[in-house]
């Protein structure tokens, strides 16, 4: 038992509740938000340290033994994602203080951000399938509100689609849980894993597994990404950045958790399917990223490509490739947030998101330009930066195991990614300067600081591979060897 495990979701929950009472005092809301995120950062760092030394930490909520009660499990994979979530949220909030506007802040903006964090943290830390569903819903309900908050016409249109699709997929999730419960009689991850390993994964369980995969694929934008570009284009940029960095990653986490811990016996069927879905996602996402001349859509399609690429690591299913996926997942959370925030500054300065209408911004905003350049190279996977090692490990694993097509598509889409973000860079920053300082629609004061934090982290992840690799390998070991997880949950 370790009560520290619940703090990553308890702190934002209590903060969110507290913020209900300070609706009009925007200053108080900002201070409380900053303080609670700093506290959260300290707590997650402490917990990560504990997990790295003592192995996975569990908490039996209410004191009931698993599989009868609810159990929260913090293993290294979950903790790395929790850490990245806190950092991304902190930077996005620093950005939101200056950009999101008083009208939204007075309508419970920070409260809903905190509740979304509760949902995300809960999804990462839960050890129970139905609880995963509940935390998904907490996250989704908050994200519905954050998309539509402000009430612009296009926000309402896109939020309607987003809500409809997510309600349908949540219903499918419930049905899948019902099937699984009627077959196995349990919903605890560790217990499910043991039961399925004992009886063998027959056709029925594989079908349910594919059904669950479908549900998570909708949430993670794996091939079923039709809702994503629209939904990520309409909210304010600080929120888009949080969505891009966090929401799809929760779906990816759920796929990784279920297909490494529970349904790992029929890898030829399920994992290959995931791999091919990933390939299709990368190709279609790549086409989307290359096709558009609209900054926000290019970035949104880049989110989709990354989802496909991470899935190849799961399809290959060796410890190297899994470590690569984990590394790439964390890198992607940080770099996507960085790119969206920088893109937000560009749109804010020019007042348009069409690339053809902006140019020459590097003359007045050198720091912004070079940070974008750095983020673009990190995203494409250029060696000293953070995207490199994850890609390398995934491709290494894929070629070792003979998944040549997947590796080739991964490499080709890396070029497409590079082309699409360099298109933004060259159109936005090079060329004739059309925008004098007086014409700019807003100032960059204070906006580059959160971006700089993320940029430094991205470089740090790339340069400090040796240091981070220890943790990534630990996380991959638990994914590759479910017995560690099961022992941590069921035998204490």
């Amino acid at each position, binding site marked *: 038992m370790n*009560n520290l495990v619940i703090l990553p979701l308890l702190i934002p929950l*209590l903060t969110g*509740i507290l913020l209900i009472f300070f*609706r009009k005092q925007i200053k108080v809301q900002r201070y409380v938000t900053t303080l609670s995120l700093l506290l959260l950062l300290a707590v997650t760092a402490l917990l990560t340290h504990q997990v790295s030394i003592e192995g996975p930490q569990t908490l039996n909520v*209410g004191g009931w033994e698993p599989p009868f009660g609810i159990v929260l499990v913090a293993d290294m994979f979950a903790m790395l994602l929790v850490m990245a979530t806190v950092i991304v949220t902190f930077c996005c909030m620093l950005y939101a203080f200056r950009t999101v506007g008083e009208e939204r802040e007075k309508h419970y903006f920070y409260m809903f951000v905190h509740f979304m964090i509760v949902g995300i943290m809960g999804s990462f830390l839960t050890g129970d399938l139905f609880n995963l569903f509940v935390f998904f819903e907490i996250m989704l309900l908050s994200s519905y509100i954050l998309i539509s908050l402000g009430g612009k016409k296009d926000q309402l249109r896109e939020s309607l689609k987003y809500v409809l699709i997510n309600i349908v997929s949540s219903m499918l999730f419930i049905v899948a849980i019902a099937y699984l419960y009627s077959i196995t009689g349990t919903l605890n991850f560790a217990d499910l894993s043991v039961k399925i390993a004992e009886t063998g994964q027959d056709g029925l369980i594989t079908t349910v597994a594919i059904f669950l995969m479908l549900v998570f694929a909708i949430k993670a934008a794996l091939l079923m990404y039709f809702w994503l570009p629209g939904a990520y284009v309409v909210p304010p940029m600080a929120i888009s950045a949080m969505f891009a960095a966090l929401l799809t990653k929760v779906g990816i986490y759920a796929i990784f958790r279920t297909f490494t811990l529970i349904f790992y016996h029929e890898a030829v069927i399920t994992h290959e399917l995931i791999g091919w879905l990933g390939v299709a996602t990368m190709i279609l996402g790549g086409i989307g990223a290359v096709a558009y001349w609209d900054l926000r859509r290019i970035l949104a399609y880049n989110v989709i490509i990354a989802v496909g690429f991470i899935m190849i690591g799961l399809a290959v299913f060796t410890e190297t490739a899994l470590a690569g996926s984990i590394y790439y997942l964390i890198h992607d959370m940080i770099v996507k947030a960085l790119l969206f925030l920088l893109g937000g500054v560009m749109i804010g300065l020019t007042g348009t998101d069409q690339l053809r209408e902006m140019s020459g911004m590097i003359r007045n905003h050198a720091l912004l330009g070079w940070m974008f350049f750095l983020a673009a190279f990190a995203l494409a996977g250029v060696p000293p930066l953070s995207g490199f090692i994850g890609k390398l490990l995934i491709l290494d694993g894929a070629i070792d195991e003979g998944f040549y097509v997947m590796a080739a598509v991964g490499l080709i889409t890396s070029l497409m990614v590079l082309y699409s973000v360099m298109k933004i860079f060259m159109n936005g920053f090079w060329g004739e300067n059309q925008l004098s300082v007086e014409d700019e629609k807003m100032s960059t004061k204070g906006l580059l600081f959160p971006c700089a934090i993320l940029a430094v982290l991205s470089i740090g992840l790339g340069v400090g591979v040796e240091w981070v690799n220890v943790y990534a390998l630990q996380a991959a070991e638990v994914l590759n060897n479910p017995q560690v997880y099961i022992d941590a949950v069921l035998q204490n």
Partner: protein
Amino acid sequence: MKTNDVILQTVASVSAFIILTFAAYLFFAGHHEPGGGFIGGIVIASALVLLYLAFDMETVQQGIRVDYKILTGIGIGLSTITGVGAMLLGYPFLSHTFEYVTFPFFGEMELATSVLFEVGVSLAVVGATMTIILSISEDV
């Protein structure tokens, strides 16, 4: 033209009390019989909605001066704090306990901390339901 709804108003004010009593019964029955915080809260909200239907909004708000958004906050806060309380005493989060206590006049009764959790649920349900209904009706 002003309609005369004296019958509706008289019946509503009497039956609101009956409904609230029933809500209290449902709430306390929850541990051993069907009932509990959620349905208790819903029934309380239905009594309030009946009053809003029979009288106009200003009249009821003069009688019941509650900001339902704050009420929701208090509710979820209370539920969470029952969990935190267990943590502070060194037990896992959300551990609950109970005790048999002999009261004068009522005799022996079971007191459980999960009742506090359920009070929170009730308040949150009442607050959320009333916030939805009142904010929809305010727009018209």
